[in-house]
């Protein structure tokens, strides 16, 4: 169970939110929405432990994530605004390096399968530089098929994806939830998933 208790964020002059709280059990999805600049990305990075809360704390299974440290990070997969890909490496190399960093090296075959699942079979050996925006995004998303972690924190994963890929990703998210995973998601796009299952947080209403 992922819990936020009385979270507050201040960036520069602005107080983005205060007293933000929620709890998310296994199999639940949290949909964070709100206008640009309302603090969605800040919240997600706070949940990962990248941003230090001004007040409050984030807890995983009842323990503060700052105490848990590596043990929490081992359960976590975060995909941010930036795709975290190296332009000079091929899609395949990027995927394998990312997995090894995550502490779970994968074989070439496994990585290829994940790329296949996203329709990237032709691009596996191309440097990411020459891929289109949407293809880049998919390479980043391929990690979802590789690392069996419980918490997925996804910042606008649907951007730059075409219709078919959006549907596929929604399917993947649903499967993950059915398997007892947790998902925290932000998106500006209206997708079916967010309409149905979701617990939501509307940003821009927590500030003062």
């Amino acid at each position: 169970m992922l819990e936020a208790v009385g979270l507050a964020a201040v960036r520069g002059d602005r107080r983005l939110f205060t007293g933000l709280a929620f709890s998310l059990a296994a199999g639940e999805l949290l949909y964070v929405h709100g206008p640009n600049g309302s603090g969605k990305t800040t919240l997600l990075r706070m949940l990962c432990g990248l941003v230090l809360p001004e007040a409050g704390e984030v807890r995983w299974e009842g323990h503060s994530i700052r105490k848990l440290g590596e043990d929490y990070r081992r359960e976590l997969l975060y995909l941010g605004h930036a795709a975290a890909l190296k332009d000079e490496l091929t899609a395949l190399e990027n995927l394998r390096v990312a997995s090894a960093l995550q502490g779970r090296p994968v074989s070439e075959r496994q990585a290829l399968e994940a790329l296949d699942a996203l329709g990237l079979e032709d691009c596996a050996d191309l440097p990411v530089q020459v891929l289109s925006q949407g293809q880049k995004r998919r390479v980043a998303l391929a990690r979802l098929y590789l690392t069996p972690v419980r918490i997925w924190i996804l910042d606008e994963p649907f951007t730059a994806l075409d219709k078919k890929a959006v549907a596929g990703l929604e399917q993947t998210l649903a499967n993950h939830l059915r398997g007892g995973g947790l998902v925290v998601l932000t998106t500006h796009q209206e997708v079916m998933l967010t309409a149905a299952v979701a617990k939501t947080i509307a940003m821009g209403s927590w500030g003062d």
Partner: protein
Amino acid sequence: MWAALRSMVMRDLTLAVRRVADVLTTLFFFVIVVSLFPLGVGPEMETLRVIAPGVVWVAAILASMLALGRLFGNDYSDGTLEQILLAPQPLSLLVAAKVLAHWLVTGLPLVLMAPLLGLQFGLEGEALWTLWWTLLLGTPAISLIGAVGAALTLGLRGGSVLVSLLVLPLYIPVLIFGAGAVEAQVSGLGATAHLSLLGAIAVLALCFAPLAAAAALRISLD
């Protein structure tokens, strides 16, 4: 864990091979700066021999300082650094792995090139050998210390100039012992004292710089 560290080093080395121009530019910057001095100071071999260790060392420091921007910069701007922070390994070890790769790519070539430049300045035999040793011990320390500065200035405007302000004062001991060793050798005092001090600095840097750089990275990404 070793797998993660090894793949970190290998990744950075692979990237360096793909961007070989980056690697070469550091090396050539070093060569060019060293070659500028005779042009500024004049061609008398006597003077040149005296200033050679200082010049080579100052050039090595400037060259590796300029390369610092690339140590975390690319990973920062494409989001990989966030992922590195989120990896379930001790961040300081990952930083150490990155610094190792960076040194192999920017420091080691300087070390290998230095004897050639020393020859151009009329250094020979023992003196050249001492210069080589000081660089071999000193450049890792420089990369390690520089990593802290690079991590602190990540994403700041004018970061590249700021980083030099931060790290140059820290480089001064390395510079003094590095250039001093050669002079001590030439003047017959022997360079062991200087070399062991340099070694001590390198070991200290190896122990503490990754920790400091890791902390700085967490701050910069907040």
